[in-house]
C-alpha cells in the first residue's frame, strides 16, 4: 500500500480547513464580519491605498533647523556671558555646527573657557590660542534630531486627528522621515496645507522707537528684529527679540466671531496666563505683536491688563483661515519644518476599477489554467486544480491573518502564482509519465515521481523566494505588496502542489488499486 502517514493526512486536512476558516471572512462585507462572535476568524485582507483609494505622503523633518536654532542660542549665550564678565571678543559666529569666538586678551581665555564650556551640556569646548570653539557632540546632534522627529510625529498626528481623517497611519521611516497614509483621502491638499506650517506662535513687544525710515535703511538697534507683516510682506514691523509668551503655553484655541469678523480665541495655561498678565499689566498702551512663523499676524494695542489668561487674535482672517489657525495652535508647533518628498494619491474610482480588473484577471487566468491542466493530465489535472483552489484559499487566509496589505502589484503576484503554482504538479506528473514509460507500475511511478521531483521543486522555488525577499527589502509601497504575495504564494503553492495533490492521488490509488494508469 502507498505509504502516507496518518498524521500527515491529518495535517494536510487541518491546514486546508484552517485556510478555509481564515479566508472565509473575505466573502462577507465588513459589517457582517463585525457582528460575528469574537472567537470566529473575522479579519479581512486589508487593501493598499492603490486599491481602496487614499493618499500616501512621505515627509522629511528638516531637523537641521533644530540644530541651527540651538547653535544660535549658544551664540546668544556666549555674547551675553562674555559681555557680563566684560571679556572683549571678536569673530563670534557659527559655521557647520560649530560656534567660534576670538578672545582679544590671551590672559582672559581661561576665564572665558570656564564660562563657555558649560553653556550647553551637549557640546565640547576647545581652546586654540585666542580661539574658542564650541561644537555640538555627535550624540547631542543625533539626540536633538531624534527628539525633533519624534515630536514632529506627535504634532503631525494631532493635526491630522483634528481634521477628522479616519484611520490615519503615521509612522517613522528611516532617521528623519515620516510616512503618512490616509485611506479614503483623494484630495490631500487640506492636510498638506496644515503640515506645511510649523505654527510657532510668539508674543513680542513692538519697539516703538524704531521709525519707518530706520526700518527702510535697516538701522535697527540690537535686541530688535524687523519682521514682515503677514498681510503685506513688504511692510516691516520692528519687534523686540525677547519672547514674552510663547504658543507652547496655550491649552486651547477656537475659531469664533467678533463684530461679524472671524477671529481666533486662545487660552493660556496657568504659567502662560500669569506671564501674559504681567506683560499686559506692565506695557499698557504699547503694542503686542503676535508672530506666527516669523510673520506678524497682528500687533494690537494693549488697552489694559489682561489677567484671565485668554484673549483673541484678530487678523483679517477668512473663516477657513481662522479654522486652520486655531487647529494649528491647538495641535502645537512643529519643532522643525516638514518637506513633502513624495506623494501618491489614488482616487476611490481608480482603486475600485483596479480591484475589479484584478479580480477578472485572476478569474480568467484561473479558468484558463484549470482547463489546460485537465486537458493535459485528466484526473491528475483535476487534482492539481483542487490543489490550486486551496492554494488561493491559503494565500487569502495568510494575507488576512498576517494583515499584510494587498496592493495592485500584489494582485499581479497572485495571478503569477496561479500560473506558476501548477509548475510543481507539472514537474511531478511529467516525472510520473516518464516512470510509467520506463515500465514502472502505477504506485511505484507515483512514489518515485513525487520523491524525485521534490528536490527540483525546492531548488526552483528557493531562487524565486530569494528574489521576493530582496524585493521586500528594497522595494517600497506597492512593490512590497507584490513581494509579500509572491513569497506567500511560493510557500503555499509548494504545500498544496506537493501535499494536497499527493493526498488526493494516494486516496485514489488506495481505493482503485489500478493496474495501469493514464496520466
Amino acid at each position, binding site marked *: 500500500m502507498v505509504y502516507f502517514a496518518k498524521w500527515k493526512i491529518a495535517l494536510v486536512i487541518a491546514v486546508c480547513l484552517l485556510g478555509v476558516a481564515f479566508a472565509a471572512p473575505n466573502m462577507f462585507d465588513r459589517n457582517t464580519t463585525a457582528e460575528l462572535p469574537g472567537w470566529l476568524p473575522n479579519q479581512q485582507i486589508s487593501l493598499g491605498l492603490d486599491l481602496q483609494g487614499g493618499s500616501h505622503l512621505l515627509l522629511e523633518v528638516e531637523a537641521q533647523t533644530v540644530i541651527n536654532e540651538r547653535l544660535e542660542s549658544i551664540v546668544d549665550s556666549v555674547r551675553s556671558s562674555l559681555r557680563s564678565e566684560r571679556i572683549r571678543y571678536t569673530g563670534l559666529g557659527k559655521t557647520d555646527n560649530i560656534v567660534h569666538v576670538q578672545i582679544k586678551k590671551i590672559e582672559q581665555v581661561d576665564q572665558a573657557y570656564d564660562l563657555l564650556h558649560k553653556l550647553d551640556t551637549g557640546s565640547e569646548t576647545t581652546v586654540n590660542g585666542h580661539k574658542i570653539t564650541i561644537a555640538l557632540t555627535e550624540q547631542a546632534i543625533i539626540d536633538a534630531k531624534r527628539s525633533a522627529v519624534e515630536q514632529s510625529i506627535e504634532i503631525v498626528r494631532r493635526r491630522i486627528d483634528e481634521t477628522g481623517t479616519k484611520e490615519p497611519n503615521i509612522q517613522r521611516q528611516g532617521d528623519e522621515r515620516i510616512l503618512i497614509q490616509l485611506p479614503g483621502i483623494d484630495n490631500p491638499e487640506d492636510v498638506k496645507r496644515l503640515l506645511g506650517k510649523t505654527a510657532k506662535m510668539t508674543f513680542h513687544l513692538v519697539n516703538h522707537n524704531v521709525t519707518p525710515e530706520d526700518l527702510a535703511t535697516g538701522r535697527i538697534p540690537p535686541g530688535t528684529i524687523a519682521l514682515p507683516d503677514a498681510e503685506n510682506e513688504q511692510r516691516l514691523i520692528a519687534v523686540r527679540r525677547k519672547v514674552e509668551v510663547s504658543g507652547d503655553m496655550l491649552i486651547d484655541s477656537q475659531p469664533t466671531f467678533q463684530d461679524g469678523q472671524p477671529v481666533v480665541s486662545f487660552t493660556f495655561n496657568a504659567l502662560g496666563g500669569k506671564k501674559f498678565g504681567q506683560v499686559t499689566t506692565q506695557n499698557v498702551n504699547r503694542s503686542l505683536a503676535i508672530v506666527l512663523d516669523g510673520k506678524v499676524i497682528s500687533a494690537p494695542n494693549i488697552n489694559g491688563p489682561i489677567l484671565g489668561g485668554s484673549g483673541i487674535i484678530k487678523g483679517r482672517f477668512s473663516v477657513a483661515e481662522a479654522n486652520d489657525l486655531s487647529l494649528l495652535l491647538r495641535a502645537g508647533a512643529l519643532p522643525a519644518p516638514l518637506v513633502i518628498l513624495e506623494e501618491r494619491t489614488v482616487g476611490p474610482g481608480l482603486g475600485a476599477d483596479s480591484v475589479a480588473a484584478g479580480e477578472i484577471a485572476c478569474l480568467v487566468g484561473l479558468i484558463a489554467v484549470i482547463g489546460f491542466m485537465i486537458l493535459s493530465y485528466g484526473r491528475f489535472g483535476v487534482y492539481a486544480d483542487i490543489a490550486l483552489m486551496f492554494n488561493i484559499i491559503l494565500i487569502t487566509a495568510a494575507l488576512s491573518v498576517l494583515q499584510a496589505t494587498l496592493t495592485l502589484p500584489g494582485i499581479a503576484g497572485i*495571478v503569477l502564482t496561479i500560473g506558476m503554482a501548477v509548475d510543481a504538479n507539472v514537474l511531478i506528473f511529467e516525472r510520473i509519465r516518464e516512470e510509467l514509460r520506463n515500465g514502472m507500475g502505477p504506485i511505484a511511478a507515483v512514489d518515485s515521481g513525487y520523491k524525485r521531483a521534490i528536490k527540483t521543486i525546492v531548488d526552483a522555488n528557493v*531562487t524565486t523566494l530569494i528574489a521576493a525577499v530582496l524585493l521586500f527589502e528594497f522595494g517600497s509601497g506597492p512593490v512590497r505588496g507584490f513581494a509579500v504575495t509572491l513569497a506567500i504564494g511560493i510557500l503555499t503553492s509548494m504545500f498544496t502542489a506537493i501535499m494536497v495533490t499527493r493526498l488526493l492521488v494516494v486516496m485514489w490509488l488506495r481505493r482503485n488499486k489500478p493496474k495501469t494508469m493514464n496520466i
Partner: protein
Amino acid sequence: MKHLHLVPTGTKLDFISKKFIFFAFSIILIASSLGLFGVNGLNYGIDFQGGIMMEVRSKTGPADIAEYRSNLSDLGLGEVSIQEFGEPEEVLIRIQRQEGDEKAQQAAVEAVKSVLKDTVEYRRTEFVGPKVSEELFEDGLMAVTLAIGAILVYIWFRFEWQFGMGAVIALIHDVISTIGIFALLGMEFNLSTVAAVLTIAGYSINDTVVVYDRVRENLRKYKKMELPELLNMSVNETLSRTVMTSLTTLLALLALYILGGEVIRGFSFAMIWGIVIGTYSSICLAVPILTYFTLRRSDDEDENTEVEKVEGEGTV
C-alpha cells in the same frame, strides 16, 4: 481518454548542435539591447526621475488632448506629456521634474489642479521629489544586483560552479534583453518594472534549475555518455514540463495584461517578455554553455543507492 501532449513523447530535438545559432542570436540581442539602451536610454518613470504624474478622467465626455496640452503648456512647467490612458475619457499627464527642491514639485501639482479645476476626476496624483527618486533608483539597482548575486551563490552551493556560471549568464541575458525591449518600445520603466525584472530573474532561474537538475541526474546515471548527447537528452526529457509551465504562466499573465487595467499593463508586459526569453535562455543558452566546462561525474555513490531504495519501496 487521450491527454494533451504538447511535446510528443520521445521528442529528440538536437539543441546542442545548433548552439552557435543560439549564441549568435543572443549576442545580437544583447548587443542591440545595450545599443538601444545607450542611444535611446530608458523612459524612466517618475519613480526614478522625479516629477509629477496625474491620471485624470474628464467629466464631460471624451477628453480633448489638444486642449489639455495648450492649457497646461501655458503654465511654464517645462516638458509636459499628455496622452490618452486606456479610455478616451482618461488622460495621463506627466510633468518633468521641476527645477529646485521638493516645494517646487508641490507648487506644480497645485498649478495643474488650478487649471483643470473640477472638470476632471483626479484618479491618481503622484509626485516624487529628487531625493526619493535617487534613492529608489539606487535601491532598485541594488536589489537586482543582489538578486543575481544571491542566486549565483545558491546555485553554486546546490550544484557546482559551472552550473552557477551558466545560470547567471542566462539570467543576465534575460535582464539585459528586458531592458533592451523597454528601450526599444519606449515603455515606462518604473518601480514595478524592477519588480517584474526581479521576478523574471527568479522565474528564469527556476526553469534553468529544472533542466540542470536533470543534467546532474543523468551525469550520474550515464557515466559513459558523451556530454552533448547527455545535455540534449536532459533538455528533451524536461522539455514538456518547460513548455507546460511556461504556457500556464503565460495564460495567467495574458489575462492580467488584457484585463488587468492600464496601471498594471507595463508590468504584465515585462513579465510576459521575461517568461518567453527566460524559457529560451534556459534551454538554448544555459545548457549549451555547459559544453565548455568539464563536469564532474563521480562522488555520488550515496545518491544512487537512494534512488534504488525509492524504486524498491514502490511495490504494492
